[in-house]
């Protein structure tokens, strides 16, 4: 599994509300379960995906749909979460707690408005990839 070259893309969509964010955590951990991710890396990915989805959901229109796309290339995972924005004109940023958690749990993350959607993005690589 460590030598996969093409990206594997998995997409999950669900109503943009807090009740289903655990599905995104489940898919995230299921996705890396057979890779070189240690327990700590899996937990970091779960929390990062959770924060990303929660941020997007917080700025999403009522009754809209959240789309979470996972892309896996070798053991690097990128996650994009997007939903129609409740206020497309407003600048948005992660609050302090979410920002600190994403900084610690992901290698890179972004949050922005894009063509009417609120979009979150992150990249995560296992800490002990060479193991």
């Amino acid at each position, binding site marked *: 599994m460590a030598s996969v070259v093409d990206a594997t893309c998995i997409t999950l969509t669900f109503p943009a509300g*807090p*009740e289903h*964010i*655990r599905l995104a*955590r489940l898919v995230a951990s299921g996705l890396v379960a057979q890779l070189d991710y240690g327990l700590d890396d899996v*937990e970091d990915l*779960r*929390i990062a995906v*959770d*924060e990303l989805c*929660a941020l997007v*959901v917080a700025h999403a229109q009522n009754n809209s749909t959240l789309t979470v796309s996972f892309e896996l290339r070798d053991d690097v995972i990128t996650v994009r979460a997007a939903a129609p924005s409740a206020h497309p004109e407003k600048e948005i940023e992660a*609050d*302090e*707690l*979410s920002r*600190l*958690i994403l900084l*610690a*749990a992901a290698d890179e993350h972004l949050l922005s408005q894009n063509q009417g959607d609120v979009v979150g993005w992150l990249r995560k690589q296992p800490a002990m990839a060479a193991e």
Partner: protein
Amino acid sequence: MTDESGAFGLTRAVEGTTATLSLSGELDTSAARNVDRAVDELVAAGAKSLVIDLGEISFIDSSGLRSLIRARQQLGDGTDAVHLRNPQPGTMRLLEITGLQDQFRLV
């Protein structure tokens, strides 16, 4: 299945003006609402201090942390108003990452 689903659970106990809230499973945005509601009800019923047992929490995110902060505020924001009992390594790590570990009394 119990481990896999990580369903959130909450139980309360009251002794005089001290209430204990025991949480289990995954404390995410969805579950945090239940914590907020329970805290409000305990305060309305006269609780002056609160012990939140985190020993069975398998996951907590920023929403969960916000509920802990909110609980302290509802109880008057005193340093002794809210005690966190038995936080597990993952919970401790999140408290450290966010600089909150000094703002709560850990028991």
